[in-house]
């Protein structure tokens, strides 16, 4: 199924990445900003100016392909590449950078969750907002950092006080390394 299904080899070798190389006219700025926002939402790694990367799978490739089309419709240029980092260390750096970026987003959720009881906010409204934020972060979290589970637990704890006899969250944490099949 899944069109181009590529695999990350895990610890022993580098995995496949999908790269979008693009160039857009400076003006008008609207399509440039729209594309920048979309890339940010996808959680891409910025390799250099106009070159971004995601772990390759059918979904990430499709997402970047549509953005490539959008760049071309905006009188820009774009191309899609499948590539492997030539050195393992280079990939680790890329993965670490993406995990760090997500960790910062989860920490922001943790900070906000910590302020809810003190600020006397309606916890349900805050929980709804923070859950939506966690879903947005989760969709671009390819290499989950430890902050992920902490943030989820902190938001849930706003609703039910922590109980020791409760089973852990049903969402199994993903391994913090290039997975076999990035999801």
């Amino acid at each position: 199924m899944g069109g181009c299904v590529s695999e990350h080899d895990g610890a022993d070798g580098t995995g496949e990445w999908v790269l979008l190389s693009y160039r857009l006219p400076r003006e008008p700025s609207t399509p440039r900003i729209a594309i920048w926002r979309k890339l940010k939402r996808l959680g891409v790694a910025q390799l250099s100016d106009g070159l971004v990367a995601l772990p390759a799978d059918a979904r990430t490739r499709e997402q970047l392909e549509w953005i490539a089309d959008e760049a071309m419709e905006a009188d820009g240029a774009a191309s899609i590449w499948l590539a492997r980092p030539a050195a393992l260390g280079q990939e680790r750096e890329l993965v670490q950078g993406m995990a760090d970026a997500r960790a910062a987003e989860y920490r922001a959720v943790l900070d906000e969750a910590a302020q809810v009881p003190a600020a006397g906010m309606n916890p349900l409204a805050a929980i709804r907002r923070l859950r939506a934020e966690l879903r947005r972060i989760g969709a671009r979290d390819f290499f989950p950092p430890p902050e992920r589970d902490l943030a989820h637990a902190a938001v849930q704890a706003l609703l039910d006080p922590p109980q020791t006899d409760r089973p852990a969250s049903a969402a199994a944490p993903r391994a913090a390394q290039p997975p076999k099949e990035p999801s």
Partner: protein
Amino acid sequence: MNWATRAGVHIDRAACAWLIRRHVDAEARFSFVADPADVPADATPFDMRGVSLGHHGGDCSFETILHRYELTDPILWKLAEIVHEADLADERFDAPEAPGLDAVLRGLSMVCDSDERVLEITGPLFDGLYEYHRRARLNGRSPA
């Protein structure tokens, strides 16, 4: 008429195939290709890069087809919001069904052995979603 799209269908392509068969071409035959170059000469491609029935100006392919074939049924546009959010999740619309539909479609693509099979299953699913929203609109509230 013959229609072609990328293999490994997900929400937008499954919804487009349903839309085409129900509202554009009752005799539609679909083929699934790995590469845009493999689209048969007599087929109309959809939800592929560089074709007119694809993503345009922030719209997903389902919305593009509604525009192109001038389908103004408000229930179809309601479904378009759900498909848009399931496919793009850009929060342009309030569509609480979208994340669930996305998960169901992803799961189906894992257990179905062909794109034809996915369309067989998703046909009644979109029929049901349409009927639900048709009644919701008639009653002015969520139907029982």
